[in-house]
């Protein structure tokens, strides 16, 4: 009886939510500029502020061999200004940057051809001298400074396997300033202080990967899970690639992937869509249309053998398990999301109940679908942390037992209902911030081909049945389709 009541309540929520979000859909204004740049605008909210998201359809997967990390490094460079922002004298600076780059190419070439040490040292000194000259024209961080003195907040950007996204928020009377800055950044970027920023990115790699046990494990896990598809490569880049990539390569990367046709920009907040359109036509048309960059054609072959990675480390144990699944637009994706949620989301999920509450063998467990990305087939990924004194291997069989149980006996209607109720509530909460909503609209536009699909999500989620969940569990969570990576703790100076 009690359960009946819950199901009834969930249904009620669903109906009620249905009324509020469709209104949002009708208020999104969409237009495409003559250069192919797509913009979405939503006027919402009371406070006189707005935020935006520039979504560049390029990420780690688009990098060539030997250039890993370039998408992310370019993201850093997109804060370095333009020919009118960030320079003391652009004419002179341009010459100095060109001279520096020639010196760098000569130096790198000598290193790679293993020239004699004296020659290498001489070329390095020459490069460093010219770098200092080029840097001397820079007004460091002027781009950031203009945004911040105009009240900009949440200024940042990030790069994933398949996207590069830029954002900040401004008071709404600064709309035109935003249009000028954001268009100029991609119409006329100057990649100044490039070789300094490369060092900054190496520090970022030390922070996130090399000096972090979790980062060390994640990099090994991704590399093991994908043997052909570039999802297996680190977005931050391999150390050797970051250390040798040149300004010329970064400029070529920009030219190839930052044409207007490859950008989607979403503006959300207290803005007049007509005004946004007028400013967009005035400023954003300065961005050249660019090419249609090719998608990744490499397909990950079916995995026919379990892969295991053991990281011997002084840190405490950690376990990752991944199964190859599907891309976001695949019809099985909602059921896989339901499976991930039933397995590992919240205190009532199966793995949490078993590992954390009952056996008291893990401090936490989570399950994600769609890692490292959504554009191409990704993974359903389980991450579990053993309690003090337990190993990662001790958790594994219990996780497989719980998966087996779903494969054999299926899941209950209540579990699916709970997933649906929670997914829809988090959908609503996701719409409530300008930041979240702009990201969602951009994601659906690029990954699914239309932002309208964001508003179809609740229906998709509602259609999932217990039988679907059992079927995808059987189909995808197979032993042979599994990659397992874990930390085995060893004393200092061990293995």
């Amino acid at each position, binding site marked *: 009886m009690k359960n009946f009541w819950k199901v009834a309540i*969930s249904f009620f929520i669903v109906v009620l939510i249905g009324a509020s979000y469709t209104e949002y859909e009708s208020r999104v204004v969409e237009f495409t500029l003559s250069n192919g740049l797509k913009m979405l605008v939503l006027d919402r909210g009371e406070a006189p502020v707005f935020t935006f998201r520039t979504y560049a359809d390029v990420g780690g997967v688009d990098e060539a061999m030997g250039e890993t990390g370039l998408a992310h490094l370019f993201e850093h460079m997109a804060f370095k200004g333009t020919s009118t922002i960030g320079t003391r004298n652009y004419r002179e600076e341009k010459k100095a940057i060109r001279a520096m780059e020639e010196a760098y190419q000569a130096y790198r070439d000598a290193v790679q051809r293993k020239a004699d040490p004296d020659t290498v040292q001489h070329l390095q000194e020459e490069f460093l001298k010219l770098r200092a000259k080029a840097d001397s024209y820079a007004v460091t961080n002027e781009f*950031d*400074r203009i945004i911040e003195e105009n*009240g900009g907040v949440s200024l940042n950007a990030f790069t994933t396997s398949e996207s590069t996204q830029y954002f900040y928020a401004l008071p709404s009377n600064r709309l035109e300033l935003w249009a*000028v800055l954001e268009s100029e950044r991609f119409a006329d970027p100057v990649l100044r202080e490039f*070789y300094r920023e490369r060092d900054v990115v190496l520090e970022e790699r*030390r922070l996130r990967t090399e000096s972090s046990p979790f980062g060390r494990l994640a990099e090994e896990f991704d590399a093991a899970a994908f043997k052909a598809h570039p999802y297996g490569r680190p977005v931050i880049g391999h150390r050797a690639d970051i250390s040798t990539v040149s300004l010329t390569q970064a400029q070529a990367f920009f030219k190839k992937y930052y044409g207007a046709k490859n950008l989607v920009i979403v503006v959300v907040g207290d803005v007049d869509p007509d005004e946004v359109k007028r400013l967009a036509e005035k400023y954003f048309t300065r961005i050249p249309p660019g090419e249609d960059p090719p998608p990744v054609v490499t397909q990950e072959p079916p995995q026919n053998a379990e892969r295991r990675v053991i990281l011997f480390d002084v840190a405490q144990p950690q376990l990752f398990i991944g199964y190859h699944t599907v891309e976001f637009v695949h019809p099985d994706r909602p059921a896989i999301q339901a499976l991930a949620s039933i397995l590992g989301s919240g205190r009532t999920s199966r793995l949490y109940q078993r590992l954390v509450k009952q056996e008291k063998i893990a401090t936490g467990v989570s399950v994600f679908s769609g890692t490292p990305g959504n554009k191409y087939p990704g993974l359903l990924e389980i991450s579990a942390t053993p309690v*003090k004194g337990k190993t990662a291997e001790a958790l594994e069989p219990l996780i497989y037992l719980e998966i087996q149980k779903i494969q054999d006996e299926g899941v209950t209607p209540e579990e699916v209902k709970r997933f649906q109720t929670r997914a829809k509530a988090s959908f609503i909460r996701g719409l409530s*911030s300008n930041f979240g909503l702009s990201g969602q609209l951009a994601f659906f536009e690029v990954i699914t081909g239309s932002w309208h699909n964001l508003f179809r999500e609740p229906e998709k989620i509602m259609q999932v049945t217990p039988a679907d969940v059992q079927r995808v569990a059987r189909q995808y969570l197979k032993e042979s389709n599994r990659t397992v990576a874990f930390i085995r703790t060893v004393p200092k100076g061990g293995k």
Partner: protein
Amino acid sequence: MGRKGFHPAFFTLCLGAFFLLLAGRGDDSEMVGRKPPPLWKTLKYPPLPAFDIPHPRRIPLSNGMLLLLLEDHEFPTVDIEVRIRTGSIYEPADKVGLAGITATVMRTGGTKSISGDELDEDLESIAASLEVGIGQESGFASLSVMKENLGEGLKYLSDVLRNPAFPEDKIALAKIQAKSSISRRNDSPSGIAFREFAKLIYGKNHPLARHTEYQTIDSITRDDLIAFHRRYFKPNAMILGAWGDFDTDDLVKKIEEAFAGWEPGDVNFPPIPPIVAPSGPAVYHVEKEDVNQSNLRMGNLGFRMDDPDYFPLSVWYEILSGGFAGRLFATVRAKKGLAYSVGAGMGASYLYPGILAASAGTKSESTLEAISSILEEFQKMLNGEFNEEDIRYAKESLLNSFIFNFDTTGEIIQRQLTYEYYGYPADFLERYREGIVKATKAEMLSAARRKVHPESFIFLTVGKSTDFDKPLESLGYGPPTMLDISIPQD
């Protein structure tokens, strides 16, 4: 700039920036006059549209509980946050961890009428969340619920706050979790730096710095939890804030119903030992062999936010370390490439003096170079090497972004909760704004000289010292004191 990529688990890592700009900007004088000004400089901004800042209703209940309520009908959700007058600083020294475990088990252990596991099911079935936590100086309970389930959610909230069952099974679970996190505490280099630096500033046994050990967790009993809860959880020691899709009068009624019969009572807080500033300069080091990047912290004891130096020093710090354009960020990161994360906090806290410190992560081989670069920026700022343009810029940054203090109802309520909780005036933010506007260079400088003391800084490095560019002795303060961070076993 937080600028990064990868794993969904990492996704939120975008490095929040308390970072930093550069002196000596300005156009090349030769060029000025010959060129048209850059486009962005030619823009004129209309005034910001008038905006009625929403004000919460402040309603004291007869049982002493204070309500702060703000309607927001855009989405069919309601959020509640209760601030509770308690904190881990009040737990006994031999039972460090008691406050946190009490809070955890209030939630996971359920109440006298519903078990924790049933509570999990009921809440997740209505997509609600209810959490309880206790930090150093305050406790909280939060409820997030779809509006149709508000009555039900409030009932659970009240039950959890008033009638926790504290079953032994869930206490054991919470203790295993607490001990597990102790076992992992040396895996994160920045975690080590923050933890150990706090002990160097406040003293290792001070309630603001001490931390759990296996022994302190082991000594905690169910009776301790019951006593801790009984001592601090009283309606008159709570402020309840709510924002979302409700009718205020109706919500007041619902809250009164949910908490009916709960009697107020006196709460006595144990005294907190006085804080004695550490004597510096002094250099400390934690050896960590599995890293190639050093974590640096350097600074001194901070101050309370109601100190008159707070406003002028905020402007000073904006120049040194504000956003992505502050000086530390521009020199240590952008110009020298020495760090990805670098920044400085001024150490202004509500109740006790905070920690005034700069921090950075730099490769082992540039550890001493990074320290001296940071010190150099402090020194320039203390010497008064900033001009009216720098001050104008810092003030504009702080003031033009002011509207973002009011753009969501949640942050309006949470800020008022904070002011009420710590006894700050309700218009403290407005006073802050006025203080920023009025601050002069002379005031900024004298405030900085009173509060920032590089000549007696405490320095801490966490890293692999054999790879350092220079020995730590080169700071000129003698050999470093090596800190032993090995975990005392049970």
